[in-house]
């Protein structure tokens, strides 16, 4: 855990320093330090104000967003895998991301802002449409009250194909807004300011706490529904709570960054390979691992073809899809 946190810190520092204007690591470190209350008050400014603007107002909001989105997606993936007892479950593969995206695209297309929710409209709608999608996939996948792993993936593909066509339709109808919707659909952390972080931060925090508190129950669920029931776990209740939490995380992530795939698949798997199958470890470590992964991916996305910027979803898919193939080949049984 401390090691992963240290890696995250280094990744963040490097990520802040690289870009169209390179800033040396020491300056980055000092500027970030100066933002910490108490310590910052006693520091002298030895850097230019423009450098501080780049670091604090341009790069940091985006990096913090990458941390939060990466954490949300990896945690959601880990929860789906544990609760559905399916190693291939992930918000993207299950179609939840696409469902959230469809809801969010509709909001963007019509410019609706439900009064009650205000700036929360987008995440709330993304969450609800994601949850609805998960429900449809779940019902489709359940044959004879049992759920095969392959059926679940297929159901995800079917639902996703349908939703994609809906999204294409929306884009065809939305001439002038098409560019921004398309870009957002491929996943992007550009166009960020601090306010985006304010929306997703509380959701990630609350969801992480709930998930970690229920980690022991997820472990017991791994023994199968019947055995978990006999062990004293209220299977139905716990499962619904966790599926809602994971979908909430997905909805929040999609509403601020579009559909970024495979984070929720790759990260929990690597954590599991390295640290074993105890969810009391997998969940918190996935949060940190997801953050490291997405900050790195975003840094690549914005620097590799400078001055052009790639959609981050492209980077995660290039890394994630082959990994998905590898997992498909490797698994021996229906479990992990």
């Amino acid at each position, binding site marked *: 855990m401390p090691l992963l946190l240290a890696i995250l810190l280094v990744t963040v520092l490097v990520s802040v320093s690289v870009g169209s204007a390179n800033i040396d690591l020491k300056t980055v470190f000092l500027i970030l330090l100066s933002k910490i209350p108490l310590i910052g008050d006693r520091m002298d400014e030895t850097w230019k104000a423009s450098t501080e603007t780049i670091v604090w107002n341009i790069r940091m909001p985006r990096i913090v967003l990458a941390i939060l989105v990466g954490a949300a997606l990896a945690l959601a993936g880990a929860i789906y895998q544990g609760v559905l007892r399916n190693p291939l479950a992930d918000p993207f593969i299950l179609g939840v991301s696409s469902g959230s995206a469809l809801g969010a695209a509709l909001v963007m297309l019509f410019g609706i802002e439900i009064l009650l929710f205000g700036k929360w409209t987008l995440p709330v709608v993304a969450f609800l449409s994601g949850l609805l999608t998960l429900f449809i996939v779940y019902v489709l996948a359940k044959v004879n009250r049992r759920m095969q792993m392959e059926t679940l993936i297929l159901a995800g593909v079917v639902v996703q194909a349908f939703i994609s066509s809906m999204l294409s339709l929306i884009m065809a109808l939305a001439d002038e807004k098409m560019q921004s919707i398309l870009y957002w659909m491929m996943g992007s952390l550009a166009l960020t300011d601090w306010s985006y972080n304010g929306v997703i931060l509380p959701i990630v925090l609350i969801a992480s706490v709930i998930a970690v*508190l229920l980690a*022991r129950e997820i*472990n*017991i669920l*791994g*023994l*199968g529904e*019947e*055995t978990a*029931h*006999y*062990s*004293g*776990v*209220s299977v139905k209740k716990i499962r619904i709570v966790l599926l809602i939490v994971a979908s909430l995380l997905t909805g929040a992530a999609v509403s601020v960054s579009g559909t970024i795939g495979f984070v929720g698949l790759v990260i929990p798997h690597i954590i599991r390979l390295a640290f074993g*199958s*105890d969810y009391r470890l997998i969940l918190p470590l996935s949060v940190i691992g997801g953050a490291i992964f997405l900050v790195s991916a975003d840094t690549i996305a914005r620097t590799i073809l400078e001055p052009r910027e790639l959609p981050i979803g492209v980077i995660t898919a290039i890394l994630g899809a082959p990994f998905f193939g590898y997992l498909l080949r490797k698994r021996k*049984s229906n*479990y*992990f």
Partner: protein
Amino acid sequence: MLTVQNISKHYKEQVVLKNISFQVKEGTCFGIIGPNGVGKSTLLKIISGLIEPSSGKIMLRNKELASISQKKLAREMAVLSQSGLPTYPLSVEDTIMMGRYPHLHWYEREGKKDKEIVERVMEQTGVTSLREKLLDTLSGGERQRVAIAKAMVQQPKLLLLDEPTTYLDIHHQLVVLQLVKKWQKEAGLTVVMVMHDLNLASQFCDQLLLLNNGGIEKVGSIEEVIEKDTLSKVYETVPEIIEHPINKVPQVLLTALDELS
């Protein structure tokens, strides 16, 4: 300890169990026997609270089963299901520790006391040397012993078993049943088990319930149930009943015939 009152279960038109009533005394072993598909497993699942009966009720020490919370129930009752433990890469020790779940508050971690209990039970069930092994690498007999260990650390007053000896060779059948017997004697445990093997049932149980077509054919002592006329009727086979040379309980002997009668 356990009272089953007028339990019936039907799925749509199909009647699985009708009007089942019986009592199990504390500290005894109660066997449920009968041909394939007569509803033995369904009855056990109803007693365990996994599925609800269409009518009737289960009383656990004067308390209705349906009113007991899941966690509290797991402190009263442990179940060894027919499907058993999964092939899942979880260590034996961690699996057995999960049996402590119903005794822990949501904010609590497993403490020293829990670890001691797990140690002691692993010793008793002979799985101490397997502690690091993963469930998916165990043999059938080992897996069943781990399942019993997990049930033991749960420290229930009532243990339900659904055909605990299926797929096991004769040595492991005895090992598993003797573990349960010893536990029953030492801790005053009440045992209810579904059994296929009539000879083992008559050696390990105090009372037997013979199910036929979803109803009770006979309930009573071993001698009352393991009896030629009753068994011939239910199993559509004519068995010979002899006395076990050592522990004097009735045993069932089958005769191979040249033709189907």
